[in-house]
């Protein structure tokens, strides 16, 4: 790799400017002609899209189509076979691992099954990043409480993940992702395998996070009801509750991507999605 490219992607640990503000004009996420395969089988082919700052993009598609792979490419956990992936202007597909760790401090990720550290308490899970940054204990307690209050699980501080239900574990995972107030959130099927009531609670939290923090996010799901709830609801800060947008209105900062057979078959707004003439999309959303 060219030394110049490495230098452009390097993050100065001593700099007071957060990595997200070094290239303020750059979108939160940009995929350029990304292709990746496993065991010589192509999974994603020539994928290009953008997540603008403050925007929420919902990535839909059948199970096993490569949605989670796209999230792992976005935070540099996987490298593409070809093409380039940019996050806040940094090319994560060409970054040194050390710089990636610094950039990831500005990215919150919610994994499919939560991926909580099972030998740590909820407090230590949520405060993991802060502990790594050597934040004083009192400050960690305060910020962990705040994050847990956001997901309404403040009483679980001393519990271990195995003592929580599936829905509670996802909520703790959300608290862990937002505790450092990241500028980008990546949600990997946050409602997968949950009952409808718990799923609604999780989506409400995602909407709350979107409308309160105004962070950019990329959310993977195969549940259409979750996707449309995100597009048609907002969070009312005064009543502290989620509410429907007026009829025929959708959230302008929320848009859709649909993945099918390794390619991106849709990239557009909620309106474009429901009025699409594409037979696959029509069949998928019906």
């Amino acid at each position: 790799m060219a030394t110049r490219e490495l230098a452009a992607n390097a993050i100065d640990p001593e700099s007071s400017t957060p990595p997200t503000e070094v290239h303020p004009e750059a979108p939160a996420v940009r995929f350029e002609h990304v292709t990746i395969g496993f065991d010589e089988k192509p999974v994603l082919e020539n994928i290009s899209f953008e997540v603008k700052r403050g925007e929420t993009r919902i990535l839909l598609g059948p199970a096993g189509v490569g949605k989670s792979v796209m999230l792992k490419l976005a935070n540099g956990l996987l490298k593409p076979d070809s093409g380039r992936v940019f996050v806040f202007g940094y090319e994560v597909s060409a970054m040194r691992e050390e710089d990636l760790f610094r950039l990831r401090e500005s990215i919150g990720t919610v994994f499919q099954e939560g991926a909580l550290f099972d030998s740590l308490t909820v407090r230590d899970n949520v405060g993991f990043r802060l502990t790594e940054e050597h934040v004083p204990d009192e400050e960690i307690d305060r910020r962990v409480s705040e994050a847990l209050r956001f997901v309404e699980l403040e009483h679980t501080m001393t519990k271990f993940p195995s003592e929580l239900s599936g829905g509670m574990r996802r909520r703790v995972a959300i608290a862990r992702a937002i505790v450092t107030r990241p500028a980008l959130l990546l949600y990997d099927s946050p409602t997968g395998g949950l009952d409808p009531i718990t799923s609604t609670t999780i989506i409400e939290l995602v909407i709350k996070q979107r409308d309160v923090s105004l962070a950019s996010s990329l959310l993977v799901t195969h549940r259409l009801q979750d996707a449309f709830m995100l597009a048609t609801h907002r969070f009312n800060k005064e009543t502290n509750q989620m509410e429907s947008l007026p009829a025929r209105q959708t959230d302008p900062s929320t848009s859709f991507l649909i993945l099918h057979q390794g390619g991106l078959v849709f990239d557009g707004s909620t309106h474009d999605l429901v009025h699409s003439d594409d037979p696959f999309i029509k069949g998928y959303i019906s």
Partner: protein
Amino acid sequence: MALTTLDAAAKRGVTAVQEYSLLSARALANLFRRPFYGADIITQADMIGVGSLPIVVLTGFFTGGVLALQSASTLAQFGAAAVTGQLVSLSMIKELGPVLTSLMVSGRNASGMASELGSMMVTEQIDAMRALGTDPLKKLVMPRIVATVIMMFFLTIVSDAVGILGGAACAVFLLGQDSSQYFHTTYQSLHYADIMQGLVKPIFFGFIIATIGCYYGMNTRGGTQGVGRSTTQAVVVSSVLIIATDFVISRFMIGLFGR
């Protein structure tokens, strides 16, 4: 067809060696990079070192005892029963202490590391750690390597000492030998080269145990079955490598010191 299979197997083998070397090198390089996980090293040293103490003491004691028991009758045929202590001490310090301690620690800890890290891999906890901006090689692998190398050194010393005591107990109480003669021949026969050989080996063996355990753990695929497979492979490969490395080090040290 057979050639293709051979070709694929060779590629897999070379890739595995490359990945193992990279993991070991990166983990060691992390020793000199910040943040330094001192507390994790101490926690691991407690789990690996103090936790392995009972099995190491028991193994050492009975190995020393059986060595005295078996060798005394053979030595008696040549009228050399008096050098039982010498045989026990040299065997324990140069070979059996380091090798048996390593095999016991490998059975207990290489498997533990492979299963712990393997479970974290299959439940995406390692990915979560990376996504949270923490290098798992720095946080999980480096402390295990450092702790195992340090604790193997001390566990081997304990095993050697307890083995010589076990041999003494057997020689004195079962075979009726004189205790001062036993300890005198034990002490007199030992040279600097023997001690060096016995103390260099556990450093290499500790490194093998930790790196192999972590390598198989960090490369676990395929759910709980994969964790089981990694655990087994970690113990088998580290045990074989310990014995093979023991031969190489012994040959080198004999060449260097002449005994």
